[in-house]
Structures are given as C-alpha cells and as structure tokens.
C-alpha cells in the first residue's frame, strides 16, 4: 500500500506519572493511612517519542500496565501529560480535545457505545447529530459503511439480540460514521474468542486499506496483530523497546511455538531428541519448536501419524518473553 509521507501524529518526550496510595500493613496501618497516607509514584509513560504518518497502521504491544493505554488516552486528550509534546494534525489534544474529536474515532475494548436495547440504526442516527454530519453526507456515508461491513440485515434489530461479531461490526461503523482521519483502538480484542478476533483483524485491515484511516491499536497479545502488516511498537515500563516492522520481530522472536500434547500411547523420547522438552510424563509432553527449523505443519503431521492424540495446544511465546529476548539482544 502506498502511504503518503505526511506526519499526522507527533509525540516528543511524553511522560506521565500516576500517584497512588500505598496501603500500610496491619490494623495500625489502616489508621496511619487515613491521617498520613504514603504515596507511590508509578511512571506509566517514560519519555516516549514517535512520529506516525498518514495512513499508517501502528500497533502498541506490551504487557498489562506497560503504558500503552495511558499513551493512547493522552493522544485522545482525556489524560494530561506531565511533560512532553503531542501534536495531532498540528493540534495539542489536551487543549483542543473537542475540535480533534471530529477527526478521531475511538473504540475502547469492553466499553460498547451502541445503545443496548435499541437497534444500531438509532445509535447511528444519534451519532450523526452528535458529530454535526450533514444529512445527505450522512446517508451516503452510512450506505457505504453498511455495505463495507455487511450489516444491512441487522441494523434494525436490537443490539442485545446480536452476536458479539455482529455487534463489533456495528461498533466499527459507529466509530467511523464521522469519517475520522485517525482511529484509536484500545485493547479491541479483549475478552474475544479466536473467531471474533479474526473478524476484528479483517475489519482493521479493511478500514486501513479501503478508508485510508490512520490506525493506532493497543494489545497485550502480540498474536492479535498476526496477518496484519503493521508497524509494531513494543512498550514496556513506559518505554519503547522496539519500533519497527512486525515482520522482523516475527522472524526473529516469534518463530518459537510452545506445543502441549496428550496422547493415548506411550511417548517415545527419541522422537523429541532434537527439541527443547520442557515437561514430560508417560502420556504428556510439553516442548518448544523453532518453526523455521521445524515447520509446524510437518511436526503436527508427524505427531498425528505416529500417536493417537487426545489433546493438543499450540501457544505463542508470551510478550514478556519476547521483550526479555529483545533486551538480551540489545545488551
């Protein structure tokens, strides 16, 4: 995809510290807490700088509490940075939040915006008024989005009767009605099963490609951005650990998979001698494979021909381990 070379989001030296009360131990601690509370300062975002160009799809990935959502909330103007500068379309979100809201669409995971008891079309109509969209433009835009997201047969059914996947499509339409230049997706896949996650990925790709919307999404699961070609920003302890192409990270760190297998027959140790075995019993084995050395398909085909498998689990390397390896390589 051809991207225009214009920076539309620029972040420089962004910092945010949260102050939280520390609970002192014991009964006396409870009383001391009331009169002289101790505070702990947590650096949520520590000196983050980055530029995002028009039409880019950027994923902020990091463990829980890494500072991704805090960064996103500062970008949308609902949290105020302690220091540093943010410019979105040349404007400071903490000062021009309302103005920028016309250019930004947001989806916060598990915080739906559709009216639960009413059909989606009612929410769409209301948002058209909220964003002061001209009626003719709105009708055209809505028609386009209805076709793009294939929701024409569900817009008149109450939201509570829709499936999670259908609801999500409607949530996307709602967030895109005002034709935002930028879309923020904060943990959009949280609480979703694999199938809905897949739909979500397809939707994100579609919006980025067809609508040319600049997208920033956050997730604690690196697997979420599989198959979306994206710029990856890994954040840990409020700092950027990695900023670059997802492909590089994938080849370097995500080729490892963790397999867990339960069988009906006895497991033969010889079959696994070239692999890193983590746990083994008579009918159960847990081992790591590097997919560039041993392609996953081959391994699984072999296992299924040799053993009667009753259960199989294939897991990605957790983001914490990826980060640890990146740190190790940087040293």
């Amino acid at each position, binding site marked *: 995809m051809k991207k225009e070379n214009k920076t539309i989001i620029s972040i420089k030296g962004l910092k945010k510290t949260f102050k939280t009360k520390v609970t002192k131990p014991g009964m006396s601690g409870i009383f001391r807490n009331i009169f002289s509370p101790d505070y702990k300062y947590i650096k949520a975002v520590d000196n983050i700088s980055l530029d995002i160009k028009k039409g880019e799809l950027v994923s902020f990935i990091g463990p829980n509490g890494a500072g991704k959502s805090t960064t996103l909330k500062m970008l949308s103007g609902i949290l105020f940075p302690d220091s540093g500068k943010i410019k979105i379309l040349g404007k400071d979100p903490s000062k021009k939040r309302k103005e920028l809201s016309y250019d930004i669409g947001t989806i916060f995971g598990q915080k739906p915006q559709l009216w639960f008891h*009413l059909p989606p079309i009612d929410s769409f109509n209301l948002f058209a008024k909220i964003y002061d969209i001209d009626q003719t433009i709105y009708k055209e835009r809505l028609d386009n989005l209805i076709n793009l997201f294939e929701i024409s047969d569900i817009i008149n059914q109450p939201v509570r009767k829709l499936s999670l996947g259908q609801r999500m499509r409607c949530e996307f339409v709602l967030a895109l009605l005002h034709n935002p230049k930028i879309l923020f997706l904060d943990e959009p896949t949280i609480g979703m099963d694999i199938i809905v996650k897949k739909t979500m990925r397809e939707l994100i790709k579609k919006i980025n490609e067809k609508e040319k919307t600049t997208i920033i999404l956050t997730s604690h699961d690196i697997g979420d951005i599989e198959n979306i070609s994206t710029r990856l920003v890994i954040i840990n302890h409020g700092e950027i650990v990695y900023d670059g192409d997802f492909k590089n990270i994938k080849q370097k760190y995500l080729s490892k998979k963790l397999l867990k297998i339960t069988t009906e027959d006895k497991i033969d140790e010889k079959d696994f001698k070239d692999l890193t075995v983590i746990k083994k019993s008579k009918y159960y084995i847990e081992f790591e494979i590097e997919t560039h050395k041993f392609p996953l398909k081959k391994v699984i085909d072999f296992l299924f021909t040799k053993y009667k498998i009753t259960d199989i689990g294939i897991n990605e390397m957790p983001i914490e381990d990826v980060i640890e390896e990146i740190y190790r390589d940087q040293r």
Partner: protein
Amino acid sequence: MSSQLNKYLSISFINIKESLTYIWDIIFGKVIFIALIIFVFANLWTVVFASKGEVIPGFTLAMMVWYLVFGEAIITSIGRFVKEVGDDIKSGEIANYLTKPYNYIVYKMFVSFGKGLINFTLILIFGGLVAYLMVGGVEISLISIPFLLIVALLAMLLNLVIASVISLFAFWIEDASSLNYIYSKFTFIFGGMIVPLEVYPPLVEKIASFLPFSYSAYHPSKLALIFSFESFFKVFLVQIAWISFFIIILIFFYKYIIKKVSVNGG
C-alpha cells in the same frame, strides 16, 4: 446554539426511546415502590386528619397526599445521577464520553432528563391512581397545567444541576454517593418533598423556603395545589435564578476538575 441544543435533545430522545423498551422494568422496579410509599402516607395522613383535623391551615387530606405525589414525581424521576457519573469514572467508561464533541456533564444531564420524563409521567399516573383511590382527587384548573409543567420541568432541571455539581466530586474522591445521600435527605426534609414546609417551626420554614432545595419540591408541589399567576412568576423567576447560579458553579468547577481526570482501566 440551536444545533447544540438539538444535539443534546436528541440525546434525551434516544434515552426516552430506550426507557420505553423496558417500561415494565421501570414500573415494577421503581414506580410500584413509590406508589407503595404514597399508599403508606395516605393511610398515615388519614389517621392524623381523623384525630387532629387540619394539620396545616388550608391543606385538606387529599391535598396532603397529592402534594406527596407531585414531590415524588419531580424529585425521584431523575434517578441516581450522581451514582451514574461515579460509575462512569470507576469503570473507565468516561473515556467514551470525553472523546466526543459534547460536554460530558451536559450530556449526562440530558440523558437523565430524557429518562426522567418517562419516570415523571409514570409516577404521576400510578402514584396519582393510588392517591385518587385512597383520598379522591384535587381541583387543578386546566389553565394552570401548562404553567405547572414549566415549573415541574425547571424543578427537575434544578435538581439535576445541583446533582451535577455534587457528581463532579466523584472526579476527586472516586465516589460521591455519601455527598449525594446528604443532598437527597436535604431535599426530602428541607426541600419539602414529603411534607409541606409549614409543618416545621416558623424559623426553619422560613430558611428552608428560601433555600434552593425547596424550589425543586415544595414550591412547585404547592403551586400545583394552590395556583396563582403571582406565585407562578415568583417560583419561576427564583428557579431560573438558582439554576443559573448552579450552572455558573458547574462551569467553573468542571473546567477545574476535568484536568484532574485519571481514566481508570489502562
């Protein structure tokens, strides 16, 4: 300005529409309970009037009960406004609202106003039915009805504006429900939601009838029972004055407090 108002009225409208989809839930969960309170008070007043005769000069038994119907309809219709704001802050839901081109608190007020109109109508119908069956009707002149509606709407608005100011404390202390508890008891007692202020000692009555709380319960309810254009204009003007006063406080307080937001859940 008119497009802004149109925007906020659409918010009220969608909430009216949503309320109507679970109207039986509102009737069973809220309205029946209030009708029950009216039933209890109707019995109580019947006993009091039988033993003592008149409690307040000019107030008959029926007027006493209908006074409560009006007070309940206006005050309880706005629902748990302060709690809802607190919940938005606690759950982080507020992030959805703060990223929209409207003012969060005004948005919430129009949400409550929409739902409130449904509650108000239902309480008036069901509470009024209980009152009518127990003590009979009261005389209300047809001409006064549009004026009474204006005063009732302003009373709801005043109640909402004060609740909004209180709800902003939730940005500070996470939960403003204790403050709201105090406020709602003030409205019950000094606002004269349950009984007219005349039952109190003259000094308390005087102070209470001056305070803003009485302009969302006592004055509108009494006006419905004893209507005159002179008292209408007086109540109307003072309501406007109090609403303006609290809106000014709200604006300044909101501007200050919104910088303190720390959105939960991230």
